[in-house]
């Protein structure tokens, strides 16, 4: 039970990082980006690629399984993931943005998600991979509860990122512009905000967080081309549960989805774990479509 809660919080924090980017893009770009979860996969594999090219030329930083190389690789992966997001925006979403039916964008992202997943499969192959072959020893912290140092790192990093992002949105001009744009794009332009610039930064931030989320997933679980496909529903569930456009909500939503997935195994067969986010999603849509914390762009029409 205790272990399930700890595991749930861990996977919840990874979902939360992905969901923050998704909720920002859904709130600011105003469409459900089916390709967002693929950015998570892309980020994870880009870090793997950088590690493979540079080699693990330094030992791990005890007690973690990774060292400076993975941290550097993650930074590169963030840049490469942001680059992919911007390239997709320019190549696919920009030409579709003017169309009368905005679902055309959703459709486009749906096609893009397949392309990104298959390109990763083509480059890296379909098998499971790991950043490091070092086996970590779980530290017993309480009866029936063991935690890996990497998991503690994951939690700590998530907390730091969430606080930093909150300060960014509250205190900086760009953060303010993002919140203004999420509420009313036309009024934002009237106020002198260049929406193109804000959209660009939204992609960069969302994609960078997705990359971190992917690396943490790879670190604590494993790397597979299907990471994104399996994360898509949890991310959407977390973003909608927390209120679309609401960063804090996405974090709480992510934790709830992670915990629910992890605790569900105590009641239903493990095979159905992936359906839990869907159940949460349906429940939210039936009971409170604006999410727990009404987002800037609520679900109701």
């Amino acid at each position, binding site marked *: 039970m205790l272990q399930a809660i700890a595991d749930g919080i861990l996977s919840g924090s990874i979902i939360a990082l992905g969901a923050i980017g998704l909720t920002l893009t859904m709130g600011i770009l105003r469409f459900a980006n089916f390709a967002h979860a693929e950015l998570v996969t892309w980020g994870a594999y880009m870090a793997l690629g950088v590690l493979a090219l540079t080699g693990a030329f330094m030992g791990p930083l005890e007690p973690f399984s990774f060292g400076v190389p993975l941290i550097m690789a993650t930074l590169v992966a963030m840049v490469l993931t942001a680059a992919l997001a911007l390239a997709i925006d320019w190549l696919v979403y920009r030409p579709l943005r003017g169309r009368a039916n905005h679902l055309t964008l959703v459709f486009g992202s749906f096609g893009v998600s397949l392309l990104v997943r298959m390109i990763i499969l083509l480059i890296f192959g379909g098998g499971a991979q790991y950043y490091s072959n070092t086996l970590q020893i779980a530290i017993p912290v309480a009866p029936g509860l063991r935690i890996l140092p990497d998991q503690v790192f994951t939690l700590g990093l998530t907390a730091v990122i969430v606080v930093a992002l909150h300060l960014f949105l509250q205190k900086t001009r760009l953060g303010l512009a993002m919140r*203004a744009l999420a*509420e009313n794009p*036309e009024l934002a332009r009237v106020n*002198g905000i260049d929406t193109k610039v804000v959209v660009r930064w939204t992609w960069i931030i969302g994609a960078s967080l997705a990359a971190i989320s992917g690396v943490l997933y790879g670190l604590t679980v494993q790397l597979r081309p299907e990471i994104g496909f399996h994360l898509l529903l949890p991310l959407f569930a977390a973003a909608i549960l927390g209120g679309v456009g609401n960063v804090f909500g996405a974090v709480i939503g992510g934790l709830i989805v992670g915990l629910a997935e992890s605790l569900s195994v105590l009641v239903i067969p493990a095979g159905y774990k992936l359906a839990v986010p869907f159940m949460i999603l349906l429940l939210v849509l039936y009971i409170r479509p604006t999410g727990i914390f009404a987002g800037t762009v609520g679900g109701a029409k």
Partner: protein
Amino acid sequence: MTAPLLAVDGVVAGYRPDLPIIHGISLTVAPEEMVTIIGPNGAGKSTLIKAVAGILPISRGTVRLAGKEITNLPTHRMASVSMAYVPQVANVFTTLTINENLKVGATALSKEDAARRIERGYEAFPDLKKFRHKKAGVLSGGQRQMLAVARALLTEPRLLMLDEPSAGLSPLMVSDVFQRLKALVDTGVAILMVEQNAKAALAISHRTYVFAEGRNRIDGPSQEMASNEEVTSIYLGAGGRKR
């Protein structure tokens, strides 16, 4: 006559290029002049202002500000040509605080200028200062209008465009808003506004344009227009709501 500040010439515009709402409208606004546009529903009054502000695409005709062509100006660059626009509804960010609304309005300014001018804005609108850390969503219609105007003035525009500043306000608030606009003109700002409250608009503005079906109908000094038979019978009698 002095050279116009704003010169709109034969503008055709609408939400879609193939479906124009205004079909060749022309008008001018002189420096420090207050001009109103009146007309029945669907006359294209708001469309014209939105086209000048770069919100709606112009498919033919030109817009000049102080002699410089600004046709299809990107909306976010309005401040750079010394122009500001206050939309009719949804004219403030309800999820941001009053202070944040003003900060967003000062996007085009340096941080130092922004802080200084926001302070000056609070001096001009002391009510806003009281609520500075409240969400704009809690403000009344009149207070929102004040906030929207205060925000538009941050960039010190030479031309201020307003879409129905009196919409949804009590008669008392209407006269308050109009007095403030009048005072603004005295400080050197030119105003172009759309009004459905034709009587009040004719009473305070210098000149008035009447639009009908997306075209210029008649125009002239507001005093003359107020006694023009056509205007009085059609527009002052039945003050139809603008869409």
